[in-house]
């Protein structure tokens, strides 16, 4: 695979490229991720607290907060605002649950041109699908081990 004129092995070339590549401004990115991620979580807590103020039990209040955040992520994506936030926020927009709904709406908008079933429908989970697969699968594994521990003594 190596080129006869370039006097480097693949590994050496890779190291050379790494040393030359412009690095992301990691400290700046970490600060923005911290602030934006923290802020989205605070919004979630505010929604939960408001629900509990209206005497909704804690578990349902948390669910309401999750649902509203998912709605916000989807809404902001559909009006082309979420991607702008994401450019600065980085992980602060990907890691919260709003990032989950963003990753569902974003591909679906583009693939709409291929129809509602095979275009929009099939591509909604292009990025978010693995979250459900591996999340549910790992909960199954945990459940199985837990069952073994509890019932098979």
């Amino acid at each position, binding site marked *: *695979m190596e080129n006869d004129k370039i006097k480097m092995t693949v590994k050496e070339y890779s190291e050379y*490229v790494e040393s*030359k590549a412009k690095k992301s401004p990691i400290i700046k990115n970490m600060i923005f991720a911290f602030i934006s991620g923290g802020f989205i979580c605070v919004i979630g807590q505010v929604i939960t607290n408001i629900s509990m103020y209206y005497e909704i039990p804690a578990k349902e209040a948390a669910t309401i907060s999750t649902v509203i955040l998912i709605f916000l992520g989807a809404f902001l994506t559909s009006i082309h605002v979420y*991607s702008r936030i994401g450019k600065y926020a980085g992980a602060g*927009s990907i890691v919260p649950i709003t990032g989950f709904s*963003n990753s569902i709406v974003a591909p679906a908008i*583009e693939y709409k*041109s291929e129809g509602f079933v095979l275009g929009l429908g099939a591509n909604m989970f292009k990025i978010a699908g693995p979250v459900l697969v591996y999340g549910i699968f790992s909960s199954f594994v945990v459940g199985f081990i837990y069952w073994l521990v509890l019932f098979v003594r």
Partner: protein
Amino acid sequence: MKIGKQTIKLQNTPKILETSSTVGPKESAGPLGIYFDIKCSDVFYGEKTFEKAESKFMKSAIDNLLYKLNIPTEKIDFVFAGDLLNQCIASGYCIRDLNIPFFGLYGACSTFVESLILSSLFVNAGYGDKVIAAASSHFCSAERQFRLPLEHGNQKAPTAQCTVTGCGAVLVVPNSIEKKVPMVTYVTPGKIVDMGIKDMSNMGAAMAPAAFDTIVTHLKDTERKPEYYDAIVTGDLGKEGTDILIDLCKNYGVDISKVHRDCGKEIYDLNLRDVNAGGSGCACMATVFSSFFYQELKEKRLNKILIVATGALMSPISIGQGESIPSIAHAAAIENEV
């Protein structure tokens, strides 16, 4: 006639009679904005999908080319064209409406020079006297195919590049045509070079070795030094790839730093946030050559240039399977008559 390892001397020196370029909003607003023929402010170009829009950019470039020369499409012998999309649908659906015998090409971002090489070889051999070479790309359709959806809240790496939206088209004619226009003198088709880079967000690093290989082979085959050329212009190595290319050449004993230019670095203002390492895509070389560099040649501010378009021959599937990014670079020497 083949000379050296992989260069072909075009003994009948075909001419590039005219060029045409269409670009999208970002390119229109860039440093080379004034040079492009048709500047579209709508990335959809009035169409419903990105793919249809890209076809329209190509149709508009070719129509404009023929309009400038007052030649009807029936008089065109062949067209060599390509783009980045799967099955080259942007080119295919565009040429469908033009009724010209068509060679669809895929060289990733090297397609424009690949088209120009084949068009020139055809005319040089007398197989046609009006042959069009064209290539297009579109930021949105390329992002959809190769990367993440537009609305996804992700950050691009500083080494990433921005696909150019637009199309460049040229008409190649025999030397016997009575106009003094730039000629294609030598062409050097490239070999695929793969130095094991797997990072799709650093294409410059993946493609620089291919550009290096083609450039030094061309210089050796033609027994020319870099200084022979007023400019050695790569397509889309961007900031990262340019630095690497110059280093690789220096290590080999060839200094191209004084004459090297890169279309990807010139088409956008590199200080803008979204642009990162510069422009890329077939249209990068196609539009910048068909506008800016062609004009520089016609007005004799440059008289001899070597254009080297680079392409990364991977797909999302091969990357997903853990493969590295093989690249290729094709070169063509374009010179004014002495």
